């Protein structure tokens, strides 16, 4: 009892033979473990992908919004001043500042080259707005801008992503919850299969007790079997599912959600914990079932 996992060492092949092979429950266990591992890989992939998505969108939200002011040159400075004043009294806005002519030229340079006569062009002025942690009321700000500076347009294109980021975060949680449910279901299925095997072998167990076998010895024969079956079944299911994920077409590199479902980098190692996890679940479930059956015998 010091080390329950010593039960799994191949040293004791005899305890395996004393219980007759059980073809049907063996195949059922193998199949369930494979199916559950297959589903678990997708739940894991879903969870990881939605996690990445949530992070990405959250980052974008932390960026800034822009206010664009188009006005006749003589009104420009007054409107800029009016907008800045308005922003400084708007709740939820951490800071705001007007971009200088140099900064605007730098923004345009990639498109028009360095020689663009910025001063001579009727360019709109840009005001960079940094949102505070509590967020601001976009619609309210828009209305006040129209009243105070008719030439100002609020561009907060990233804000529509907020509910999506939230949804992606929920999706990650649902994926994790699915993993827990899959593990629980597998435990339940293995308990049922182990109980079936134990009842089918009640007479064998009785004889083993009669000739002086300890409970741990008898339990070991069953635990070994179901643990190894769960391990190999889960390994098969995991490999097949990982192949499936690896072969998903990558049509949209721009970050479409479905095509981003794969694993990335070390993420590919994560599904490899599923077979050992299945083995641990099977170990615990069979051990529990075996000792419960044995307690009913002398």
């Amino acid at each position, binding site marked *: 009892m010091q080390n329950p996992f010593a039960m799994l060492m191949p040293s004791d092949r*005899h*305890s395996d*033979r*004393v219980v*007759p092979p059980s073809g049907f429950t063996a195949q059922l266990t193998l199949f369930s473990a494979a199916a559950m591992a297959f589903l678990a890989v997708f739940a894991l992939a879903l969870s990881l992908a939605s996690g990445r998505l949530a992070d990405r969108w959250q980052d974008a939200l932390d960026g800034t919004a822009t206010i664009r002011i188009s006005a006749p040159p003589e009104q420009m400075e007054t409107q800029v001043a009016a907008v800045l004043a308005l922003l400084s009294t708007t709740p939820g806005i951490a800071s705001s500042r007007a971009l200088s002519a140099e900064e605007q030229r730098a923004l345009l340079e990639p498109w028009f080259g360095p020689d663009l006569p910025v001063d001579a062009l009727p360019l709109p002025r840009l005001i960079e707005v940094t949102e505070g942690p509590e967020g601001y009321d976009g619609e309210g700000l828009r209305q006040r801008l129209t009243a105070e500076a008719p030439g100002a347009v609020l561009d907060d294109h990233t804000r529509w992503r907020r509910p999506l980021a939230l949804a992606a975060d929920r999706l990650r949680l649902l994926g994790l919850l699915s993993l827990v449910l899959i593990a629980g279901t597998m435990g339940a299925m293995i308990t049922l299969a182990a109980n079936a095997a134990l009842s089918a072998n009640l007479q*064998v167990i*009785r*004889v*083993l*007790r*009669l*000739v*002086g*076998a*300890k*409970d741990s*010895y008898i339990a070991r024969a069953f635990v070994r079997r179901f643990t190894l079956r769960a391990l190999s079944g889960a390994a098969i299911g995991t490999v097949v599912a990982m192949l499936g994920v690896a072969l998903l077409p990558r049509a949209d590199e721009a970050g479409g959600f479905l095509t981003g479902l794969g694993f990335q980098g070390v993420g590919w190692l994560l599904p490899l914990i599923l077979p050992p996890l299945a083995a641990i679940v099977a170990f615990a479930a069979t051990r529990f079932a075996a000792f419960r059956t*044995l307690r009913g015998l*002398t």
Partner: protein
Amino acid sequence: MIAFDNVAYNYGGGELLSEVSLRLAPGSFHFLTGPSGAGKTTLLKLAYAELKPTSGRVTIFDREVRSLSRDDIAMTRRRIGVVHQDCQFLDHLPLAANVSLPLTVAGRTGEARDLTDLLGWVGLGALGDALPPQLSGGERQRAALARAIIMGPDVLLADEPTGNLDWELSLRLLSLLVELNRMGKTILIATHDLNLIRQAKAQVAARVLRIKNRRVQLAGADL
């Protein structure tokens, strides 16, 4: 070795055994007799802790049965050889594996080399690879005896060991049991075969316990 003190037992109906007190001294040879259904098998089950007494005390190797843990019971059974009435073999294992099963479950597989000798001693040397269902009743009972003694137990309990045997084979089995007793083993045989008892009494100092009206009494010379 094994002692009953004022033991009673019932399966849930009426009381089957009452006020049973007996003592199996080391090296003693006892028969347990009584009509079919009297409770011979039940008494033996009490003696190897498959059943616990409804009241009274059963003591095996100086330990009260009720105080034994499940592992203690397993260890106790390794010191008591039992020939069960229905043999209790594992039908999917060959005879040799069945006979050495007590060694296997005790993790003493290395000692199975004595197995050939033992199978030869009970006259089953050629049948080690046969499956139990392929054997005759007599062969099964001799195999059961071999399994009962493979651990070198101090006590041997046999439940109707000659039940399926003709007279000649019964005598052969009896002589094996007498031989074991001469080697110092404590022996208790449940049987309703009075001829067998008479035959044994000619060879060893056997005492006869008889179950009558739920009580166990020492039978006199009136057999």
